[in-house]
């Protein structure tokens, strides 16, 4: 079943083209890594899927919900972990958890069980009633990650999942993501850490100056990059 479908997506800011004719599909339980140099358009593509960046042309569907005409239902089908945490300074960690839970219409009991488990796992259970400004950047990233992982959504969008996290948190997050993929969640992630690709991603899409220049199986990509190094 197709979870995410992008067709001829074109994004421009002023006269500059940021994404040009981007088309690809993702099926259930598939994990795709968006790779490319800085400025290739990975984060712009993420923001376009979320709706933070307006597209000029093309269509984006999640579970057949069109981003342009059914945005409210579309929004309930994905969860997003940004590269930089963007928590609200007026809400505590627990209040953020509640906001995410309520927005994704989660039951209070399952929300609390899950939140407590992951707050412990990421070693920030004592920060529940703290405001983001009293947390380190890594801790804020952990909070943002936990919040986005709380709901069971068909699609998880992750911009640089391991940036700012400590080694322990990276391992835990990797495990959670693998579990999510096994349970049928599709994951679209951007990363520069190619060594982690084969554990997390099944396929890759390579971008260059806003264009898809290559896509395929991760194993194939690993082989290619090895040959290039030789």
């Amino acid at each position, binding site marked *: 079943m197709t979870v995410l479908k992008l067709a001829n997506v074109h994004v421009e800011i002023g006269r500059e083209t940021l994404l040009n004719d981007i088309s690809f599909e993702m099926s259930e339980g598939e994990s795709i890594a968006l790779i490319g140099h800085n400025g290739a358009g990975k984060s712009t593509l993420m923001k376009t899927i979320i709706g933070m960046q307006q597209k000029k042309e093309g269509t984006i569907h999640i579970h057949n919900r069109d981003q342009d005409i059914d945005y409210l239902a579309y929004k309930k089908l994905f969860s997003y972990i940004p590269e930089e945490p963007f928590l609200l300074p*007026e809400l505590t960690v627990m209040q953020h958890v509640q906001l995410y839970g309520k927005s994704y219409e989660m039951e209070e009991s399952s929300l609390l069980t899950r939140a407590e488990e992951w707050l412990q796992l990421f070693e920030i259970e004592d920060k529940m009633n703290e405001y983001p400004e009293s947390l380190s950047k890594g801790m804020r990233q952990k909070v943002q990650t936990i919040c986005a992982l709380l709901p069971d959504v068909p699609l998880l969008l992750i911009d640089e999942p391991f940036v700012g996290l400590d080694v322990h948190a990276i391992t835990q997050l990797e495990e959670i993501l693998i579990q999510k993929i096994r349970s049928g969640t599709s994951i679209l992630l951007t990363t520069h850490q190619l060594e982690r690709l084969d554990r997390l991603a099944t396929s890759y899409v390579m971008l260059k100056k806003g264009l898809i220049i290559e896509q395929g199986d991760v194993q194939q990509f690993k082989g290619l990059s090895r040959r290039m190094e030789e």
Partner: protein
Amino acid sequence: MKRTVAILRFIRKNRSQKKRKLYRFAFGVALDKTISVYLGLFTILFLIILYDQLQQFEPIFHQIESLTENRLSWIVIGLIAGALVLSNEDPAIRITSAEYKLSTLSYSIKHIWKLLFLEKMIRSMINITAFFSLLLIFTPFSYVFVIKLFIITLVSTLLVILPQWYFHSLHGLKRWIIYFLGLILIAISRLIVITEVVPEEWMISIILVMLLIFQFYIYPKRFKKASWTQIAERNDQKVWNMMIVRFMSDTKTKPVQRKSAWKDIYQHVYMKKPFRYSKASHMYRRIWLKGLQDHIEYVIMILIYFAICVFLTSFKGELVQGLGIVGAMFMYVKLVGSLFVTVFQYPLVHSIPWNMRNLKSSYMFFVYCSSVLLFIVMAIALWIGKGFTLNILWYSICFVLALYVLVDFQLTHHLKRFNNRWYTATAYEQLLVLALYASLFISVLNVKFLFCSFLIILIGKYKKKLPINN
């Protein structure tokens, strides 16, 4: 110190070069040579007309002069109060991140601060002198009066720079105690003047001397609680907030994060408690509160524009008053609608699903709160325009209900637009809104049309629909 002066000059020079470049670029987008020449000519023409017009109001200016003469201490009080309020977000002395970074090199932050303090004083002097020179040239105020006003304003402005800096670094209970004491002092000083224990001139001198003594008290403490990174961040926003460039380039800037009052409230122990999960409105009200607080100037502007529009037209007869009230309502609805959209631009809010019913109802809570104020404003304006009758009550109720329906329509329209990029209001909806405005206008001329307005309000209340997928 000489090295510090040289490096600060270097920073200033580069900053003004960059700003000039940006302004040139921004004006280049909007103005060519022909437009600039016309604009210049129009400005000169406008100034001549302005001068001519102002001279015609000479008796009014003399009246203002004689009224102000006995209330000059209010200027000093106003400037002190203004500095206290401004200190929430403006440290007054422009230490930006560039100047702050110098302190990590071999420059003393104390020297930098001293020089910038001096710069602020000189700038204030130049600005005030320029303003009062214009007042002297263009208005029929007497020389003695303008010079008196100039001296009082200049001295007060110079004396509030340091307190503004000092109060900027204060927060918590201490700040509120100072605000409270300030209010009490103002009340006492007015009482003394009213009861003629001390004449007005003496009171001005007393306040200024007290302010001067206060400088000596706070000067040694000026760095004690200064949070330099926050000050630098705030000043960066002030220095680089170039409205024209922003407008021309359609760039959105991060709203200034307000500290103090708002922070004191939301960091209270009670506010740290988790929300009641079953009461989603509490959660969303907190987000709206942040949104309103981040755009407080905009909120105040909406209310002031509304009041001005309604009051000014209430003296000009029923026709103009009707137009004024309907115009003010139209503007209020549009502006409140624009304010509604701002919260969705926060990255966090944008990235999560929108529980529209809750988001809308929690926003409407603030609209209800403001409608109490609007009710009073409209009742007073109608009283002025129509005299004291029972109808004023019906008018005010009808207008406030109409505002509620119109705002509701506007928000629902935004919500539908959020859901469907191509959504446009139906002809029926547009007609209903138009009919309501028309009926409200006519009802000012003829009270019987109030019934018609109530009827449209009822229809409007039951015909609106929220986006289907929520």
